[in-house]
C-alpha cells in the first residue's frame, strides 16, 4: 500500500485508464526476422512521385541530419530545421567514446544475438526487443556508410578498422575516432546534408526553433517556428514531420549536455497528443566534474577509464573539515570496495552513481559544497610512479586542473554523478511513428532501444541507424497512403490558428513582467530534480518534488521577467520558453518515477532493493512501458506490454 500523501499526489495527476498500446512489431515472425519481414511489407513511393511529398525534419544531429539527407537523396522535398546557426553544431558533436556495431568480424564471439542480449539486459528489460534487433542488424552497414561519407575511423596498422571494448560488454565492438567520435560522425553527416542542400532537395532553415506541432484532421501536418534572429513566427506545412531533437537531460540545469539542448519540440508535440514514454529514465554519469561554485554552468564528463586506477572514498566522519591528505587511512571509507568487493571501483554507471549519492546525502560529501566524492590516485602513484599515471591520464588530469584549479597528482580529484542521457522520449511504434499519424521520432528524442539504462556507445548508433536506415524506409510507407493529397496550404486558416496561438504564447511570457530571469527558475528546478528525482528516488521524495515543482511553476508564471522584445534576437526569451516546458516535463518525470513502483536500470526506488542493495525489478507488475498522454493538467498512462523471446530476463548482479 502506498502512503496516503503519495497516493493523493498520484490521484491528483494520474489516471491509468489509457488503452493498452500496440508496438506494431510483426508478431507472426521471430524478433530477429521482424525487420526483414516489415521491410518487405512496406509500401513504396515511386521515384517520380517522391517530389510531390514534403517532409519536415526538425533537428540536424546524427538522427536528423541523416534522415533529411537520406530522404532528400531519395527525391522527397525535405525541409530541415535547427535552432543552431549551422547543422554541424548539434549536440551529437560532443560525444567522445565511440559507436557500437555488431559486425562480429573478430573471433571474440560477437554476433547480432549477443549485441541484442547485451543491450536488452543492459537496459534492464524495459526496451522493445524487436527494435533492438533492428538496431543490431542495421548497425552492420552504418559504419560503412559513415566511413564512406567522411568519418575517419581509427585503423589498425594493417589498414583495417580498429575497435575497442566499452562498458557492459565483453567483446570489442566499439568503433571510434580518437576521443572525437561524435564530432567526426556529426561533421560527416552535416556535410552529407549540405550536399543535398546544394542539390536543392533539402531546404535548410537555421536559427529556427520549432514551437508547435500542427495537427489537423488527426495527422501531423506541419510545425510552427520562430526565427531566432528576427523573431518572426511562421507555420510550415508538410505531409509528414520528423522530430529528431535530442535529449532533455538539461532539465537538471547542470548536465553533461550542451546548454541549448531542451525538450521543447518533443513536449509541444506531447501537448498536441503525442505520448511521452518513460520520462523518468535518466542516466547519471558517475564521473562528472562536481559543481565547484554557484556559477559553473554545466558538469563536464570525465572519462570512466579513470576508475581503473583511481580509488573512490569519502571521510568516515560526516562533514570532516580536514583537507583530503590530512585524513588518515583508517578514517577513509572506500565505500565501493567495501560494498562491491568483486567489482569495487569498476561497478557499472548506475551502481556507482547511486553509491556516491548515498554518501553525499548522508553527509559524507567532500569539497567546498560537500557535493562530491574523492577519486584518489595516491595509491596508484605509489605503486606505479607518477610518470605512468601521467602518461595514462595526463590529458584528463590537465582538463581537471584547468577546470578546478587543483592538481590531481597532489590532491584527490572530486567527482559527482551528473545528469547525462535521456532514455525516455516520445513513444513510437516499430515504424518509428508516434501515436499521431505522420509524426515520426528518431534519436535521443525518442524512447527506443535503451530501456531503463543505456549501454555506452549505443546512442550514436541509434541516432545514425534511425536517420539513415530506419526512417527512410518507414516514412515512405506512410506517405504512399497519401498519394494525391497535397500538403496543407500555408495560408489555410487552420494553419494560421496554430501560428497565432504560438505567437500569443510567446507574447504571454514577455508580458508577465515579473522580476526574475528564466535562468534563476531553471537553476532551482535543477536542484529540485537532483534531490527528488535523481540517482535514487523514494516515493516520499518524489511526491514532495512534485509539490515543489508546482510551486515553482506558479512562481514562474507570476514573476518571470523576459528582457527585450519578442521581435528580435532574444536569448532570454528562448530560455523562458524552454523552461516553461521543463517545468511541466519535470512534473511528468517525477510522476512517472512515483508511479513506477519498482527499481529498474537507472530508475532506483529505495523502497525496492534487494537485501544486498541491488535494484529489485518487478517483472510481474511492471514489464511494460509507460507512455503518458496529457489531458489538460493531468496525465493518462498507456501501457505497452513487453515480452522477451530471444533474451530471457534475469537479474543484473555486480558483486
Amino acid at each position, binding site marked *: 500500500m502506498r502512503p496516503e500523501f503519495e497516493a493523493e499526489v498520484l490521484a491528483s495527476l494520474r489516471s491509468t485508464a489509457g488503452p493498452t498500446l500496440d508496438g506494431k512489431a510483426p508478431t507472426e515472425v521471430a524478433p530477429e526476422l521482424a525487420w526483414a519481414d516489415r521491410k518487405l511489407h512496406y509500401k513504396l513511393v515511386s521515384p517520380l512521385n517522391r517530389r510531390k511529398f514534403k517532409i519536415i525534419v526538425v533537428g540536424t544531429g546524427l538522427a536528423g541530419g541523416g534522415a533529411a*539527407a*537520406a530522404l532528400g537523396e531519395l527525391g522527397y522535398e525535405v525541409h530541415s530545421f535547427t535552432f*543552431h*546557426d*549551422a*547543422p*554541424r*553544431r548539434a*549536440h551529437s*558533436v*560532443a560525444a567522445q567514446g565511440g559507436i557500437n556495431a555488431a559486425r562480429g*568480424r573478430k573471433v571474440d564471439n560477437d554476433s547480432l544475438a549477443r549485441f541484442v542480449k547485451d543491450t536488452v539486459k543492459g537496459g534492464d528489460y524495459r526496451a522493445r526487443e524487436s527494435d533492438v534487433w533492428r538496431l543490431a542488424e542495421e548497425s552492420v*552497414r552504418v559504419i*560503412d*556508410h559513415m*566511413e*564512406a*561519407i*567522411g568519418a*575517419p*575511423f*581509427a*585503423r589498425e*596498422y*594493417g*589498414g*583495417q*578498422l580498429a575497435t575497442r571494448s566499452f562498458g557492459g560488454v565483453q567483446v570489442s565492438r566499439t568503433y571510434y*575516432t*580518437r576521443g*572525437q567520435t561524435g*564530432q567526426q560522425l556529426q561533421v560527416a553527416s552535416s*556535410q*552529407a546534408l*549540405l*550536399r543535398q*542542400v*546544394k542539390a536543392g532537395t533539402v531546404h535548410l532553415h*537555421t536559427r529556427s526553433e520549432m514551437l508547435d506541432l500542427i495537427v489537423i484532421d488527426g495527422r501531423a501536418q506541419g510545425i510552427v517556428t520562430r526565427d531566432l*534572429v528576427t523573431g518572426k513566427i511562421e507555420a510550415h506545412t508538410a505531409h509528414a514531420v520528423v522530430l529528431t531533437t535530442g535529449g532533455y537531460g538539461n532539465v537538471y540545469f547542470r548536465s553533461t549536455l*550542451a*546548454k*541549448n539542448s531542451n525538450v521543447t519540440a518533443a513536449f509541444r508535440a506531447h501537448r498536441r497528443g503525442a505520448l511521452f514514454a518513460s520520462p523518468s529514465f535518466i542516466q547519471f554519469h558517475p564521473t562528472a566534474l562536481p559543481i*565547484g*561554485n554557484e*556559477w*559553473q*554552468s554545466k558538469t563536464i564528463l570525465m572519462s570512466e577509464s579513470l576508475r581503473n586506477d583511481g580509488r573512490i572514498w569519502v571521510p568516515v566522519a560526516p562533514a570532516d573539515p580536514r583537507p583530503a591528505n590530512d585524513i588518515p587511512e583508517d578514517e577513509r571509507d572506500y565505500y565501493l570496495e567495501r560494498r562491491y568487493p568483486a567489482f569495487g571501483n569498476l561497478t557499472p554507471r548506475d551502481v556507482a552513481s547511486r553509491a556516491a549519492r548515498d554518501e553525499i546525502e548522508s553527509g559524507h560529501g567532500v569539497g567546498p559544497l560537500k557535493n562530491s566524492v574523492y577519486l584518489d590516485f595516491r595509491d596508484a602513484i605509489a605503486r606505479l610512479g607518477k610518470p605512468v599515471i601521467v602518461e595514462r591520464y595526463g590529458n584528463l588530469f590537465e582538463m581537471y586542473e*584547468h*577546470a578546478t*584549479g587543483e592538481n590531481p597528482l597532489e590532491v584527490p580529484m572530486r567527482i559527482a554523478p551528473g545528469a547525462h542521457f535521456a532514455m525516455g522520449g516520445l513513444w513510437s511504434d516499430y515504424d518509428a511513428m508516434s501515436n499521431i499519424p505522420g509524426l515520426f521520432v528518431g534519436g535521443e528524442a525518442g524512447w527506443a532501444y535503451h530501456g531503463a539504462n543505456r549501454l555506452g556507445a549505443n546512442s550514436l548508433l541509434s541516432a545514425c541507424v534511425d536517420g*539513415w*536506415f530506419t526512417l527512410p524506409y518507414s516514412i515512405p510507407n506512410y506517405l504512399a497512403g497519401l498519394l494525391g493529397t497535397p500538403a496543407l496550404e500555408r495560408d489555410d486558416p487552420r494553419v494560421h490558428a496554430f501560428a497565432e496561438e504560438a505567437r500569443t504564447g510567446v507574447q504571454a511570457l514577455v508580458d508577465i513582467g515579473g522580476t*526574475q*530571469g528564466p535562468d*534563476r527558475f531553471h537553476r532551482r528546478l535543477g536542484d529540485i530534480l537532483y534531490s527528488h528525482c535523481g540517482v535514487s528516488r523514494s516515493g516520499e521524495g518524489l511526491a514532495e518534488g512534485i509539490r515543489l515543482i508546482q510551486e515553482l511553476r506558479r512562481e514562474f508564471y507570476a514573476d518571470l521577467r523576459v*528582457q527585450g522584445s519578442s521581435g*528580435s*534576437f532574444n536569448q*532570454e526569451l528562448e530560455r523562458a520558453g524552454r523552461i516553461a516546458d521543463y517545468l511541466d516535463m519535470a512534473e511528468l518525470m517525477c510522476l512517472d518515477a512515483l508511479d513506477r513502483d519498482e527499481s529498474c536500470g537507472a530508475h532506483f526506488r529505495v523502497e525496492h532493493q534487494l537485501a544486498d542493495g541491488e535494484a529489485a525489478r518487478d517483472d510481474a507488475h511492471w514489464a511494460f512501458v509507460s507512455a503518458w498522454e496529457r489531458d489538460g493538467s493531468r496525465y493518462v498512462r498507456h501501457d505497452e506490454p513487453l515480452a522477451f523471446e530471444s533474451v530471457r530476463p534475469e537479474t543484473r548482479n555486480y558483486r
Partner: protein
Amino acid sequence: MKLKLKIWRQENTAAAGGFVAYEVDDVQPELTILEALDKLNDELVEQGDSPVAFDSDCREGICGSCGITVDGRPHGPEANTPSCHQRLKSFADGQQVTLEPFRSAAYPVVRDLAVDRSALDRVVESGGFVSIDAGTAPDADSHEVSHQAAEVALDMAACIGCGACVAACPNGSANLYVGAKLLHLSVLPTTKYERGRRARDMVETMEEEFGPCSLYGECVEVCPAGIPLTAIAGVNREKLRAVLRGRDRDD
C-alpha cells in the same frame, strides 16, 4: 576576484554599436569567461537591463558555437583554446578586459557578441562533401586506409568550425579552415574522383566570401583544434593538383 568589462553592444546588424562598461564581482578564477558573462547577465536582468547576447552551446570546446574577441584576440588570451574554456585565471584581479564579437567582413554581427558565420558553411556546401548515397557505401574493411593516413585525416578533421582563424587574420582569410577540410577529404578512399572538382569549387567560394592568405600565421595561434600551418599549403596543393590534372571540374 573582480573584473572590469568593456563590452561591445549592438542591437542588430543594421544598428550602430559601441562599448559599454560593466563590472563583475565575486567571480572565481576557475570560472570561464562565458560563465562570468552568465553572472553579469543575471545581474543585468535583475536590474532590468538587457543582457549581453553571445553564442555558446557545448561549453566543452567541441561544437564551435562560442567565439568572442577578448582584448583584441579571438577566443581569448590562452592560445589554442576556445572561448568556453578561457578561464578568468588568465586575468589579474580588477583588470579591465575588452569583449567584442569576432571581427571580420565575412561575419555580420547578429547582436552584441553573436555573429553570423554562415559563410563557413557556404564553402562546404559548394563541394565539401562525399557524393555517396545512403545504402551504396562499400564495406569499410574492403579498402585499406593506413593507420598513418587515418591519423592525418583526423588531424585535419579536428576543426570545430569556430571561425576564429578568419577573425584572427588581418586579411580575413579562411585558408586554414578550407585547407583543413580539403586535406581531410583528400585522404578518403571513397571520394577520389571528385577531388579536383571539390578543390576548384571550394576555393572559388572561399575567394568570394573571404580575403586572401598572406601567410601571417595568426590563425594557428588561436585555432582551438590545433590545425597546423600545413593546412594552408593544402589549399594550394589541392588547387594546383586540380589544375595540373587539366580536366575541368572532374577528374
